[in-house]
């Protein structure tokens, strides 16, 4: 018996009790026949005086079912919406909003009729609220909190206070507030585990918070049934069954090795225990991580409130993926035997828009290994084709490479293991803030005359945010209230705040350079970091627009932080400076109001990390170490990158095609390209295709066995296009 049926059964009893009391004059009489779902209509329970509050909600519709006319007569004036010939005919029309108790007429329908009941409206609102959460990815905490409080108050006013305590009963507010609190904190708690960078757990969490919305579930399963809630409930159950049950059983059979019939009672227990431990570890890590995350969030909010955390926005990248990305971190198979080489694939994407600034990416991979009681990260081989364990890529344009991470046989002990793919790279982020200046006297005169200078000069972006280029670090800049008045007769103190904010799931490993550019008519008078004014060089000068720039010193100077102090930043780092205007006429030129820019450029090294998991099982035959005979029995399998075809390549761009061969045995293999580029490459597992002319091509991988029979062939269609083609 399910929870809802238990509640429902209790509700039926309450309805009968109500009916009984009605017959004694307090409440309406029972309808001629019972509820269709009510299986316990024969017995009455006069001793039961009052149902629990938890269940009375369920009984609202039962009260209508048991005596709709009476209910309408009793409650409709409060609700303010009851109409009804219900009192005599029993055809109660009306209800809380629109609709109501067909119950009496139908002899006890639980489904309230009409267009919408207040429960329907509550349910629709809850679903809209959940849609908002999904859209904002549960991130907008302030708005979420406010909406959930408002929702609780709404539910209290229109549902709980009416049927649990009476209109305005403040005690009845506790329950909806509690539900809202759960709805607020559960996603917050679950999301806190996101920061642990546990990829598959992230997916699970995203699934849970998306498919188990607290308020809609409470309304659908814990409140009286309406037509809408009934259909939504059925749809929801079907959705869950269809979505999860097959994969659930597959997962169980997979995890418990049912398909290989290797499962014994103890085996199941061991595996279960392992999974419990692993899950417990995640939960522990999540819980342990919450204070840190809350502290971080609180710190950020406090810094923002006191003005030491500056916000901005990221430039529209027009769907260009700029920076370095690790994607598709996947093992070639989810389960490895202990004597297998564990292979994990990852795609490394790099794109920079500055051809003069090369990015150097060092990719490494690490596996979690238990050494004694400690879980340590041990390095795998990210470049099996060379002696170096690091995969190094240098690019000044756009590259897409596949990384193969190999861990030798017996590297891992048994059980689920996390494997991390790291990429450290140098990158540059530039940010600019549009700033408005005008003559201080004129500004004051306009303000005294009630004139907004922005309106006067048709400026719509009155408080423009700083805009930074795409990348792993957001550079946010903030200055004084605009327009900033400048004067020759009185000094004007201008604040310049800069925040380096970690935008990706990694960390700023170290800062290599931070440069501030302000108009030459201005000067930095103070900074809380060690900045110095230097002559600009090359592109920094922007065709003579700047003569000098401000650069942060490498080391701490006079107690003020230098470059060396900005490292391992996982959150944010702020810098505050003060400026003054040396030459007002030069700054303003001929203009009554001028817009100019503050610019900040940061060069830094960033560390990116992505993770996947594998399961290490005991070697076939229980062997300790590589069993040649077992290896022989296994057939060669091939995993390809890229996985899809056709592939678009720009002229001059190198595109890598690669294959991972598990259990290669004695096969021989090679690559061939046809079309705009004709060439062959034998005995390599990866092939870099590039062409200097546009057109169609075909890249083919083929493998043959020792006796000359073709065992594998894979072909990709390649379209070589001009630069600038999207």
């Amino acid at each position, binding site marked *: 018996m399910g929870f809802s049926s238990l509640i429902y059964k209790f509700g039926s009893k309450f309805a009968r009790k109500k009916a009984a009391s009605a017959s004694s004059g307090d409440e309406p009489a029972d309808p001629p026949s019972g509820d269709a779902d009510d299986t316990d209509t024969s017995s009455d329970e006069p001793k039961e005086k009052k149902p629990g509050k938890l269940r009375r909600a369920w009984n609202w519709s039962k009260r209508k079912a048991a005596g709709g006319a009476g209910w309408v007569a009793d409650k409709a004036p409060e609700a303010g919406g009851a109409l009804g010939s219900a009192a005599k005919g029993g055809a109660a029309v009306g209800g809380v909003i629109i609709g109501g108790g067909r119950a009496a007429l139908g002899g006890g329908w639980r489904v309230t009729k009409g267009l919408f009941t207040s429960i329907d409206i509550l349910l629709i609102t809850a679903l809209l609220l959940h849609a908002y959460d999904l859209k904002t990815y549960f991130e907008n905490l302030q708005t979420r909190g406010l909406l959930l409080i408002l929702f609780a108050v709404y539910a209290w006013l229109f549902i709980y206070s009416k049927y649990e305590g009476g209109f305005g009963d403040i005690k009845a507010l506790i329950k909806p507030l509690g539900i809202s609190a759960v709805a607020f904190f559960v996603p917050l708690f679950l999301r806190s585990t996101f920061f642990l960078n546990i990829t598959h757990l992230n997916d699970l969490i995203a699934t849970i918070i998306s498919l188990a919305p607290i308020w809609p579930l409470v309304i659908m399963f814990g409140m009286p049934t309406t037509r809408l809630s009934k259909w939504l409930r059925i749809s929801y159950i079907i959705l869950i069954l269809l979505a999860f049950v097959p994969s659930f059983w597959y997962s169980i059979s997979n995890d418990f090795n049912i398909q290989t019939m290797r499962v014994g009672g103890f085996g199941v227990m061991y595996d279960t225990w392992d999974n419990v431990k692993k899950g417990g570890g995640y939960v522990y890590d999540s819980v342990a991580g919450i204070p840190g995350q809350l502290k971080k969030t609180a710190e950020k909010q406090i810094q923002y409130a006191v003005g030491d955390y500056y916000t901005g926005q990221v430039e529209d990248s027009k769907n260009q993926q700029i920076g370095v990305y690790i994607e598709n971190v996947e093992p070639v198979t989810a389960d490895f035997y202990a004597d297998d080489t564990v292979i994990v694939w990852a795609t490394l994407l790099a794109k920079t*828009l500055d051809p003069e600034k090369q990015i150097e990416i060092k990719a490494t991979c690490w596996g979690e290994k238990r050494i004694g009681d400690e879980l340590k990260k041990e390095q795998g081989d990210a470049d099996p084709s060379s002696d170096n364990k690091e995969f190094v890529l240098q690019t000044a344009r756009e590259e897409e490479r596949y990384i193969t991470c190999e861990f030798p046989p017996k590297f891992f002990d048994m059980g689920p293991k996390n494997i991390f793919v790291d990429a450290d790279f140098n990158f540059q982020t*530039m940010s600019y803030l549009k700033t408005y200046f005008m*003559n201080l006297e004129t500004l004051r*005169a306009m303000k005294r005359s*009630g004139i907004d200078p922005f309106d006067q*000069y048709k400026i719509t972006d009155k408080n423009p945010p700083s805009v930074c280029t795409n990348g792993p670090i957001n550079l946010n800049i903030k200055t004084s209230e605009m327009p900033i008045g400048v004067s020759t007769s009185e000094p004007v103190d201008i604040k310049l705040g800069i925040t380096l904010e970690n935008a990706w799931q990694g960390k700023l490993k170290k800062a290599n350079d931070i440069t501030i550019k302000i108009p030459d008519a201005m000067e930095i008078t103070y900074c809380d970091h060690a900045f110095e004014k230097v002559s600009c060089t090359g592109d920094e000068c922007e065709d003579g627009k700047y003569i000098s720039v401000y650069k942060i010193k490498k080391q701490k100077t006079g107690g003020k932080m230098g470059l060396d102090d900005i490292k391992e930043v996982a959150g944010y780092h702020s810098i505050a400076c003060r400026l003054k205007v040396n030459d007002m006429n030069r700054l303003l030129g001929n203009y009554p109001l001028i817009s100019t820019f503050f610019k900040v450029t940061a060069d830094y090294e960033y560390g990116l990390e992505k993770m996947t998991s594998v399961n290490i099982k005991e070697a076939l035959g229980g062997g300790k170490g590589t069993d040649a005979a077992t290896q022989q029995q296994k057939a060669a399998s091939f995993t390809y990158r890229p996985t899809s075809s056709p592939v678009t390549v720009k002229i001059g761009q190198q595109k890598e095609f690669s294959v991972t061969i598990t259990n290669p045995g004695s096969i021989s293999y090679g690559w061939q390209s046809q079309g705009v580029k004709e060439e062959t490459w034998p005995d390599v597992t990866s092939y870099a295709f590039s062409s200097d002319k546009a057109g169609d091509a075909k890249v083919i991988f083929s493998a043959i066995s020792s006796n000359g029979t073709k065992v594998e062939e894979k072909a990709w269609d390649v379209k070589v296009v001009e630069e600038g083609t999207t």
Partner: protein
Amino acid sequence: MKMRNRNRSETRFVMRSVLALSLICMAALLISGCSGLKRPSKDITVQIHTGTTGLAMSFLKNAPPSDIQATGENQRTPFQVGISLENKGAYDIKDGHLLLSVERNYMEIMGWQLNDNERFTQVGASGEKVSFKLKGRSDINPTGEIDSIFANVDALPFEKQSITRSASIRATACYGYQTLASASVCIDTDAYNLNPIDKSCTAKDISLSGGQGGPISVDKIDVSVLPNNEEGEEKSASPQFVVHISNKGDGLVFNKDKVSDACSSANLKTEDINTVTLDDISFSGYSLKGGYFECSPIQIRLRGQDDKFVCKVKKGIINTKTGAYSTTLEVVLEYGYSQTISKDLAMSRII
């Protein structure tokens, strides 16, 4: 004989016909000539001093374009900014200033296409400002002068890691302008009806709507005549006019002497802003310039609601025995005016 008589009567008929036709033509000419002279003249007078627009400004279509796409790295992308100026008011702009404002980190003004156009002259070497003159509506040109000017602007190269920018271009015009309002008023010197003569008119307040061909509009004139407390038989009355004015445009009104400052970074003081100067007020040969009026204030500060000034004819000028008569009151206001147009541009570079 018969033939002769017949010819004579035919000749007479033709002569009469020609005479009649000539008379008809002359009459037609006279009628059309008179009406042709009178009617349009009346219409033009009415049309010139109406409306609340002085200078109308707009960017020409696609100049500047809404989207600018930079084609290559380190390359400037030239484009044009075209500004149309039309003097829709009833006053000639003699020394207007037009200031083109671009975001200097994104764009650079390369120069104006003046093409020997006498209406525009570049001001200073920096190239962002031109002076202009445009005649307003008149009997000769009832629509006012219209002209346009182009500036060559370069979009500067993008920063290396940058792809998109949003920027704006603004054009600000500053010019001196004048509003001339005229209205028929009744000067009733016998305010207390002491003279037993029938009055030809009675003093009443005048409402003016639709403007007078400039952004500053005279909306209402309260007319009253104040008897002066004098000894002797010859007593005088002082007609008093309370003139209500307002800024009907969306620009900035400022002191008429600060036109150049308004289009520059120079100081504008509080007393310069929203200030209209009363240049003259006159009727029946009595004027402020002629010293017949006492007006307060001469420099009128617009505060946005019930902005007015009061003018009163000085004591001893108009005798109470003059009686009541209708006359035309003219009010001339002078001011500086500044207005801005702007256009947002989306700039991107092709990668």
